[in-house]
Every structure is written in C-alpha cells, then in structure tokens.
C-alpha cells in the first residue's frame, strides 16, 4: 500500500513533467483515433497506467515469487491512480488559481491551450475530479492488465499498442497506402488525421489475431530460436523457411522506395547513413568494448575527405570557389581512399590514447570529436573546407548518367554499403578476430596473458570502426550534396551511441532496429523534433537501468549485462581486481603509486 502511494505520486509528478515540457499542451489536436483519443490524452493516461502495472509487480518474499491476486491488484491500481490523479489535479488547480499567464512567463509550455484541454470550460473542482477519475481508471487498467491470464493479456496488449502506433504513424501509413493506390479513407480519416474508429477496430483485431497466432506457434518458434542461438558460434543455418523469409525481406527492402515514395525514401536514406555509423561504432563499442564518444570524428572525416577528393567547391556569398586542394576523383575511386584515410587516422589517434582506462578513453574521444568540428568551422581551415559556409557541388556518385542524389536512388547506393558493412561485421564477429575482441572486452589483462595483443586489436577495432563510419560520412555528403559544419556536432556521436545501445550492444539486428527507432521514427514525425533529444536521453537512461542488453540483444552481450546474481559477485570481486587491471591497462597508475 505504501508503494502504491509512492509510485502513484511519482506517476503524478511524471504527468506534471509531461505537461511542463509541452507533451500534453502542444498535442491536444493530434488525433490518434477519431477525435476522442488524442496524443495529449494518452500522455495523461500513460503515467498512472504504467504506475498501476508497476505497483502490482510480483514480489520476492522469503525466496519465492509472490503474485498479487486480482482483487488486491485492482485496489493497488486504484490507490496508485487516486494518488497520481490527486497530485496532477492539485497541479492543475494551482495553475488555475495562480494564473496560467503568470506561470507561462517562466514555464513556456504551461499554456492556455493546455488548461483548456485539462479543464475544458468546466468548473475547476469538477475538472479536477474528472482528472482523478481518469487516473484511477488508468491505474486500475494497468493493474488489471498485469493480473490477466496470458491468453487474454497478450492479444489485448498488442491490440492496444499496435492501434496507438498506427494512430501515431498517421503521416506515414496513409502516404504509403496512397502510393500503392489503396483506398484508405476507411482507415484514416481525412478530417481528424488519425485512425477512424472502424479502422482502429480492424487494426486492433488484426493485431490481437496475430498475437494469438504467434502465441500458438510460440513454443515452436522459441525452440527454433533457442536452437539457433546455441549454434550461433557456427553462424546461422539456412533452413528453407528462414531462406524464404530472408528473400521476402530482401525483396521488400529492395522495392521499398518505389512503394513508399520520396518523402519516406528520404528518411530511409538517412536511416541507412546512420545504420552505417551504427555498424561502425558497434565494432568499437560492441565488439571491442571501447566506449567512443567522438564518433562524429570519422563521420566528419569521411564527408569532408570525400568532398575534397571528388572536387567539391567552397561555399561563398557570391557563389563558389575552388578549395586549396581539389582532386577530381570519381566517387568509386575516392571511397577506398576515404576508407584508407579514416582507418589510418583511427590508428594514429588511437595509438596514444588506447592505453587509457575505459571512461577516460571515452572522454578523450569526445574531445577528438569536438576538435574536428571546431577545426572544420574555424577560419583557419576556411581555404580548405570552407569554414562556417561549408562546401557544395559534391559528387552525386553517378554511374554513367545515373546519379544518386534523388532519395529513391540514394537509397540503393546506401543499401549496398549497409549490406557490405553488415557482411563484414558478421564475418568478423565469427572469426579469430572477433574472438580476440570478445576476449579483450571481457578481460583485457587476461586476454593479454593468453596471447592476444591488446593494443593491436584495439587499434584494429578503431580502424575498422573508423573505416565504416567514414563511408557513412561520405554517403551523407553525397546525399545532401553540400556540407556545413552544423551537421557535424557532438549530437551525432551521442545519437550513434544511442543507436548501438538501444538496439543492443554488439548485435547487428539491434543496430538496424535501433536506427529505425531512433532515426527513422523522428525523421518521419517532424512535429516531435523538439522532443527527440529528450526522448533519446530518457531512452539511454531507461535502457541502462531496465534493459542493458538492448531491444534486440546479442546473446553473449546480454549474458554479460543481465546475469544479475552472477554479475553482482563478479563485479564485487572485480572491484578489487579492477584497480589492478585499470592501472595495468593504462598508465593511469603511474603517478598513483
């Protein structure tokens, strides 16, 4: 009961937070289903809902897992909801009494629109009571969801979230349907923008149906997956089924731009670029276990060196001028050179810093990433790379007369490189080199004692990661055709790190999933641009706290991060060993002794 009060008040505070950053007030008109279910409405419900779910989590009592029974769950959920609702309602009353405009002078998102939505012209006490009632319903719903039998719970769950997702994707799905000449007015209303109620019902039923089917086949699939995982070391086996799925997937990927149209292709192009960056960083962070916070270094290096090698010009106020170095190489000749430059720089910058302990290395790489950004911006290098004005007239990587600037064409060029990078990563992971990296990541000192040259393999990871990342940069340059330093900030590094971590450190499907979620979705949902980084930050923290293995985990990596009890004792014993390893792995101990 006490935990219900605690979680309930947290949920209330979270709702206030959502209101204060504008996630409620700015989206009162974003209809998801009909004009009744809006994004703002979902935001009000979400915290008590999750609160009700969390508060009914089974507890460990005297060594056994105790589930909460249904009656008690409903009560706990209701209490959570009441508390959450009261906290939020108190906030609304306070804003109303104090005056919206006075608060808005400081909290810019606590706006009249927000209050209109929350109070809706009713007397404030009535509005507050309604808010509490809503929170109670949400809290109970969350709690009941927890205690439902699996056979009902899963279909209901997936029906709800898939329907909301489709409502959310109202800018994407209709475009795709239009492109395919499929009648869609029954699904998405032109009037409200969101799903129609009929459409929502259909989507929900389909989602529930799929969930039931999947559950029936679940055991079989699970067995298959388990089998595959145990054989993972030898690489995936090709059964006719997986082959068919793979071919169908490939076909879908190949026709995607034609089905989805230019707008979505454009976003998919960005996704591909970031997928390349993710794959590159995955080698450094995921395989070799070196945290690199300055990955933008290689992105920038790739973009600018491609520009210089292929004869781009400098932006000026009146037009363009030749840079100091202008080589007129063909894109396909330039790419290997770019890769070589990046790999060499990886080794060169890596050599002095790789002996540093993990967290110090992270900050040094952050510094290197910042430095290259400052350098390309600085007036000093202006004759070479254009300074703040940047460069233009970058090659479109044409083969004959077929250029790749058009988003639909670029998609294929980028896809080819992503496929190549995937192949390289996959082959490396399952090889002597990959084994050495894993050993290095697990225990540097022992790897050294077992004959793995730690410095060489760290440098190798840096070089490989850098090479792949530089291709990402080069493609980015081709994609947009001109470069300005504004595209190259520390945020790129953080974004790519987010992709690798959210997807699942060391996992190739994870990188792709992470890119789709973190780059694809925000690219398509422009109205959420302001909240992208907020969500990034929240996602990074949440993933580390709740699911450190990521969305699509690498099996081994997840073991590393998940096995709680084992890890606890390992960590504990490591703390002592750590001091030795840390000092041994770096010259940090030099003056510590």
């Amino acid at each position, binding site marked *: 009961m006490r935990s219900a009060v605690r979680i309930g008040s947290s949920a209330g505070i979270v709702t206030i937070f959502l209101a204060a950053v504008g996630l409620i007030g700015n989206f009162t008109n974003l209809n998801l289903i009909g004009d009744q279910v809006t994004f703002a409405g979902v935001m009000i419900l979400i915290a008590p809902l999750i609160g009700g779910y969390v508060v009914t989590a089974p507890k460990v009592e005297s060594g056994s897992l105790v589930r909460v029974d249904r009656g008690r769950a409903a009560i706990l959920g209701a209490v959570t909801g009441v508390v959450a609702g009261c906290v939020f309602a108190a906030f609304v009353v306070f804003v109303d009494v104090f005056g919206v405009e006075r608060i808005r002078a400081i909290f810019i998102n606590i706006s009249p629109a927000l209050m209109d939505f929350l109070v809706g012209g009713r007397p404030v006490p009535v509005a507050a009571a309604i808010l509490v009632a809503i929170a109670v319903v949400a809290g109970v719903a969350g709690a009941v969801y927890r205690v439902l039998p699996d056979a009902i719970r899963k279909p209901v769950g997936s029906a709800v979230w898939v329907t909301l997702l489709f409502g959310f994707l109202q800018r994407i799905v209709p475009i795709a349907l239009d492109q395919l000449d499929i009648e869609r007015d029954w699904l998405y209303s032109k009037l409200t923008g969101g799903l129609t109620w009929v459409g929502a019902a259909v989507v929900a039923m389909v989602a529930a149906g799929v969930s039931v089917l999947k559950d029936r086949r679940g055991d079989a699939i699970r067995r298959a997956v388990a089998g595959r995982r145990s054989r993972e070391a030898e690489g995936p086996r090709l059964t006719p089924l997986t082959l068919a799925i793979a071919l169908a997937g490939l076909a879908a990927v190949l026709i995607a731009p034609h089905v989805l149209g230019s707008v979505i292709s454009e976003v998919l192009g960005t996704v591909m670029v970031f997928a390349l960056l993710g794959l590159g960083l995955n080698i450094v962070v995921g395989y070799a276990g070196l945290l690199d916070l300055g990955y933008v270094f290689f992105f920038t290096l790739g973009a600018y060196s491609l520009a210089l090698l292929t004869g781009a010009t400098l932006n000026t106020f009146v037009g363009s001028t030749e840079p100091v170095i202008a080589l007129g190489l063909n894109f396909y000749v330039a790419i290997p050179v770019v890769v070589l430059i990046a790999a060499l720089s990886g080794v060169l910058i890596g050599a002095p810093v790789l002996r540093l302990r993990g967290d110090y290395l992270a900050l040094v790489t952050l510094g290197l990433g910042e430095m290259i950004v400052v350098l390309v911006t600085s007036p000093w290098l202006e004759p070479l790379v254009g300074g703040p004005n940047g460069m233009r007239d970058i090659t479109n990587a044409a083969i004959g007369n077929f250029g790749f600037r058009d988003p639909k064409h670029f998609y294929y060029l980028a896809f080819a490189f992503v496929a190549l990078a995937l192949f390289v990563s996959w082959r490396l992971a399952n090889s002597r080199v990959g084994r050495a990296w894993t050993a290095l990541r697990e225990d540097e000192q022992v790897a050294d004692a077992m004959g793995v*040259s730690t410095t060489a393999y760290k440098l190798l990871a840096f070089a490989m990661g850098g090479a792949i990342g530089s291709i990402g940069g080069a493609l980015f340059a081709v994609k947009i055709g001109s470069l300005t330093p504004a595209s190259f900030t520390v945020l790129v590094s953080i974004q790519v790190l987010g992709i690798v971590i959210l997807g699942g450190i060391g996992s190739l499907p994870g990188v792709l999933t992470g890119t789709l979620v973190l780059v694809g979705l925000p690219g398509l949902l422009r109205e959420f641009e302001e909240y992208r980084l907020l969500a990034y930050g929240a996602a990074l923290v949440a993933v580390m706290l709740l699911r450190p293995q990521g969305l699509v985990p690498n099996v*081994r990596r997840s073991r590393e991060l998940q096995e709680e009890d084992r890890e606890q004792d390992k960590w504990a014993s490591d703390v002592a060993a750590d001091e030795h390893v840390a000092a041994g792995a770096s010259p940090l101990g030099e003056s510590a002794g």
Partner: protein
Amino acid sequence: MTTPLLEVVGVTKRFGGLSALNDLSFDVAEGEIVSIIGPNGAGKSTVFNVITGLYPPDDGDVRLRGETVVGLAPNRITRAGIARTFQNVHLFANMTVLENAMVGQHCRSTAGVFGSILRTPRVRKEEETTRERAKECLGFFGSRLAGYRQDQPAFALSYANRRRLEMARALATDPSIVLLDEPTAGMNPRETLELRDHIVRMRDELGLTVLVIEHDMRVVKGVSDRVVACDYGRKIAEGTYDEVANDEQVIEAYLGRRHEELG
C-alpha cells in the same frame, strides 16, 4: 651443461617500500615439474606475474631458453611459450567453454581482418584446426569439459571445472612451460587427487614442463621433481621434497605462521 628451459636470475620486485621479491633465483629444466611453496605473502604469485610480463622486475632477469623475456608484453611472452593460470580463476565468463579454449590458440593462428571477412580456404582450415586443437585441450580433462558443456558459457561451470577450463585454455596456447597458480585451491580431496594426476600427465603425455605454486603438500609431494621454498620474497630452500620439508628454515617459516599446512 645445457641451458635450462626457464631461468629466474636475481629477480627483485618492490612495491613501494616493500620488497615482494628479493634477489630470487631458480631455474626449471626441460621436462621438470617444479613446485614453489611458501607461506602466504611469500611472493609466489608475484614470481609468476614477473615471469609472464605482468610486472617488470626492478632488477634481475627472466630467460626462456637462454633468451631474456623481460620487457616483452605478456602476449609476446605467451607466444614465446609460457602459459599460465591465475590464482583466482580468470575466464572469459561470457564466452563458451570452447571459445575460451579457442582464444588460447589465438597466438598460434594468423587469420587477419581480410582473411576473416573473405573466409578464404586457408582461414577456414585454420579455424577448423583451432577448433580441433581447442577440443583436444578440453579433452585432456576427460569427460569433464566434453560434449554439451563446450557450448555453455564459462560462468555456468562449476568451480572445479572453471579451474580445469583455465588450464585447458593455457594448454591451448601450445606452451613449452605451464605456470599453474594454486591449481587445487578450493577443490575437494577427490578433485585434488585427480588434478595431481593431470599435472603429472601434462609432463608425461604432453611433454610439458610445469612450474606450480601449491599449498597442498600432498600434491607437492606427489608431483614435484624439485621444490623451491620461499619466504619474504627470498628463496630459503631448494631440493627434493624431502630435503625441503625437513629444512630448518622452511619449518620455521611455516610454524611461525601457518604450521597446519605441512600436515
């Protein structure tokens, strides 16, 4: 007289003001099993760390077949033919048992980035050899590390099996000499006996030279051709087990602190 396989010559190692090793010298001939004994804190593990390049000696020299290894990185020393285990087992906990052993073969194989990406016939063959060799080394311990266990992550193993895996990994580096740091620590009497046989078999069947730090005097007695006793980082006695066990200084060193260990 032929050069001994491993020579430790006048090695001194200080930590701050404390001498962990003080002008320590001994050598190990090819095909010998030598035990190092001594009370806790006698600097036994430090000797291993110096030999394998983890710590540089402040003074003195370590030679393998007459050539110095001081200054080489640990991985170079392993490649030169010195393999080791650690006092408190250090495995790659999340790699499978087989992969752990395969890492041991790392320094005996050459596949690089391009070979691994292209998976050339040569690389494929080498990978196969690596796998076979790793299985062979695991097979040295009979059924303990065989079959389904090879695909389990190392952390899933029992304590004794972790110790065995660590030895298998050391064997997989194809060493000329293995350094075993308290291989029987934490094992029950039966496992200890089994391990004693393994140590002897390492020499007799695999033709290895073994340097072992050991507390269990039954093991020391059972395996050693020669025993080196240390205290306070100095050698206080050297000879056959019986000679050392009856040495005045050794008895005093042990009786002074941990007499129970001689029983």
